[in-house]
Structures are given as C-alpha cells and as structure tokens.
C-alpha cells in the first residue's frame, strides 16, 4: 500500500508473515567464498503456499468417511478459502439444513447435487425446499500420519 506526496512515494511494509532471510556471504574471511552465495533464495513458506488469502481462509476438521475417494478422511484438516468462487465440480463446505457438510458440488440450474466420493454413501440433492448455502471452497486437505 502506498501514499504519495509531491516528492516522495512511501511504501508500507507488509509485516503479516514471518520469513527467515538468509544473509549473503556470512563473515568475510580470507578464504574461498561460498559458491552458493550467488544462488541464495528464500526458504519455502507453507503458509504462503496453502493460504493465498489469510483473511478469508479458515481451517476445519473432518468427521466421517463419505469423501475418502477424494482423499479426505476422518480427522483430516481442510484449508477452506471463502474468497474462491464456487464452481461446478469443486469440493466445498456447505450448510445443509443447519449442518456443516463437505461434498463435491454439481451445480444445476434448479438445484445442487452434493456428491460423496465413497460408494457406501448416496448423493444428496439440495433444492429450494432445503436451507442450503455454500460456506467456502476447500483448497487443500492436510493429513497427518502418526
């Protein structure tokens, strides 16, 4: 974000995320300089990779097995971005008749299909008679191994 006046342009730093920045060269000694010094890059930041928009990203926990075909299992962590526009075929958190549920969406003009990815579960159709809203789009699933 910047603010301009007649002579200068001021830029405000973004201090919202932490990163370690390697310092080039280290101590100057009479020895052979590190051949890697010219190739210094920032360490990888998972926050940046998984959380595009921190203000609209929420973490939620999964309970149940209906989405195992998409790799979403009981106890997994989902990264949900509310700023992503829901599209046909996306996996989303929905509010269906007062409950949060996670399903793949098939958007149709007169209703929405909520598709499980485990053959043991049946698709659900949400129409005007249901209390149905899309809460946010699932961007990532994080599994932890014990």
């Amino acid at each position, binding site marked *: 974000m910047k*603010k301009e006046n007649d002579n200068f342009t001021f830029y405000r730093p973004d201090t919202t995320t932490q990163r370690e920045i390697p310092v080039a060269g280290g101590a100057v000694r009479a020895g052979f300089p590190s051949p890697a010094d010219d190739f210094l890059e920032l360490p990888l930041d998972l926050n940046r990779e998984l959380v595009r928009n921190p*203000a609209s990203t929420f973490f939620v*926990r999964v309970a149940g097995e209906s989405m195992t075909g998409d790799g979403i299992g*009981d106890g997994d962590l989902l990264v949900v971005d509310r700023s992503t526009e829901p599209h046909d075929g996306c996996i989303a958190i929905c509010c269906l008749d007062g409950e949060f549920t*996670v399903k793949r969406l098939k958007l149709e003009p007169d209703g929405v299909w909520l598709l499980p990815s485990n053959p043991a*579960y049946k698709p659900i159709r949400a129409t005007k008679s249901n209390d149905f809203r899309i*809460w946010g789009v699932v961007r990532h699933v994080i599994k932890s191994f014990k």
Partner: protein
Amino acid sequence: MYGLCDCNNFFASCERLFRPDLEGKPVIVLSNNDGCVIARSNEAKALGIGMGQPLYQVQRLVEQRHVTLFSANFALYGDISRRVMATLRALVPNTEVYSIDEAFFDLHGIGEPLDDYGRQIGRTIRRNTGIPVSIGIAPTKTLAKIASKLAKQYPKLDGCCYMHRRQDIEKVLATFPLRDIWGIGRRYGKLFDGMGIRTALQFVQLPQEWVHARMGVAGLRTWNELQGVECIAFEQMPARKQQITVSRSFPKEIESLAELDRIVAEFAAACAEKLRRQGSACREIICFIYTNRHREDQPQRYESGLATLAEPSASTIEIVKLARTVLQQIYRSGFGYKKAGVTLSEILPASQMQGSLFDPVDRQKQQRLMETMDRVNRTYGKGKIVLAAQGTHPFRMNREHLSPRYTTEWDELPVVKAE
C-alpha cells in the same frame, strides 16, 4: 469522500458464522460474567431485547422464544475483526480502524459511482469473512456514520448509502435523531431534549457562537461536520490510548479484603501489560470498587481512589504495588463488592520518560525484567509468570455459554460432517 464500514450485530454475526443452525434465529451475546446483553441478532432485536439489558430481565423471553445465548468470546471476535479489517484494507487506499467492528476509509481519488464501489466492498467482506456489513459514504466522517446507519436501516439500499448532495443530506438531517449523532450522545442528549431540539437539522440551525459557548470546540466540530465541512481528520495510526482500564463484575459479591487485593493485583498487572504493549508509561493509577446496584436491600458503596507515581512507569511491580495501596485506602469492611477495576491515566510514550537524579529504582533493570516477563508469557501462554500478589488462581469469569475459539485454537476448529 469518507466511508464507514460497520459490521452488523458484530458479535452475534461472529457466533452465527460457525452455527448454520442459528441462521434466522434469535441470538444474543452476553457481557463478561454473562451479566448484560451486548449484542443481538435482528431476530432478538425484534423480540424487544434491549442493548445492555441485564440477563435476568430477559430470562423469560429467552426461554419462551428459544433465544440462543453466548458468553462473550473475544478470542473469536478479535480474530474475525482482523479479517474484516484486512479485507477492507485491500480494497481502499487508506483505513482507520475505529473500533472492533467499525473502520473509516478514505475514498479520495476514487472515481464515481461511489455507491457501486461501496456495495462491492460490502459484498466482498461478506463473502470473504462471512460478516455482513453496512457501508456509509459521505463528505465527512460524522455524515458517513449517519449514512452507515441508514444503510443498515433500509434494506433497499443494498448495504451501502452514499450521501453527498446537499439537498439529500438536509432531508436526512431533518428526521435523524440528534441523540444518535456521533459526538452528541448521552452527554448532550438531555440538554437538547430540554430545549426541544430533537433532530440533527435543528442542531445545525443553532447559531455557531451558541454551539461553541455551550459545547466547546468538539461540539463545533460536530456542527461543522454535519454541514459537510471536514473537521475530524483521518488517522491512519491508532492513537495511543489515553486511559487503560481493566474491570470486571464478580459472579458473587466479595467482602474480604484479601480476595479483593488479589483481584486488584491481577487487574493492575493486566493494565501494565497493555501499557507496555503500546509502548507507553503512566503517571496515575486509579482503583475502584462498587457494591451491587441491583441489590437495593443492601448497603451501597462506590469508592475510588487515585495515586501518583513519583516517576512515570510501565513496570508491573510498581503499578501493582500502588494499586494495592489505593485499595487499602478505599476498602471498608461490611460491604459486598460486586465490581472492581484499575485505570491507568496520564499516559505518555515510554521514550519520553525522564530519569530523575534521585530515582531509587534501577529503571533499566526493571525494564529488562518486564521485557523478559512479557516474552515468557507470550511464548508459553498468558499468566505463566505473575507477581505473587496475584496468586496462583486467576480470576475466573462466569462464562456458561462460551463457544469454541474456532479460528485461534487447533483443538477447537469447526467440524464438518462427511456422512
């Protein structure tokens, strides 16, 4: 032009974001200790539940109409507020956060149509954070506040009220209650009621000299702002607080000095920590204790006392010590105290602290100690290092209806069903 972004029923909206079953149902949020109503969903307002009403007065309504209660969950509200403000910041050139649920923004240099722009802001915040907001846009901050109230009141404005033409503003002021104007409030409400002045327009029509004489510069500013003359500057940096208070009502009345002493020490320590967080020091410490004003059958006492530090300080040790001294002076036995609090005032930047030649305290050593204490408490959790005077059992609030900290604790994340 200035804008105001105001979250609708903010605390209630935060609770409902994670409780889809409560959509369209009455919800209220209670103050610390579940004492009074501090937020209401529209459905709860429609039932006639008033802002600030004690819970016991609405208890029957709550049961009969199935109103859902929440204890104040400031961990949640704080996080959602940050999200709303961050989203707004990305959409406008400059913002000024005014409170947990309100922010002004600057629209200088943004082209018309500004009402469409405002609606876009509202929709984006609603989608990204889940919180409904009302946007007001007008030539001054005072008028923008009015516009945001209109946006909330009239659904057909679709979340944004852009009020800029002279004749439109006058039309609004002709009916807008003077009491609800920013800067008038309760303080002058009675004065104007007595004079039969009820609308903002009547106030604007008063002579400038009269307003200046009766209300001072602040009143004159409001008077000018209502006429579109910009007087209240846009502040991008939050101002250092001029006073810091920590106070609570107790679930039960407390008589014993020892118990009050421990609580006052805890409140004073919390004040000192806030003081250091904003890089300030203070010179004055006020301590107060109140009996229960709802218990007319019991003797009442409202006591407060003030003490001055020899040198401005931000040290928990000094501030707690002085607060306890004040408590000793104002305490009388034989009363049931329901509320206590500590206020720090005469606040100045810590960098302006002048050392005194005869200062018996080693300031640098104190400062290092405080820095270490704050760091430990930040890393290992609140209250890991406290003064002995605070005791080992921190003051617990009554929070029977507390919701999970959905966005700030790994163990309390919302759960979605895959069934």
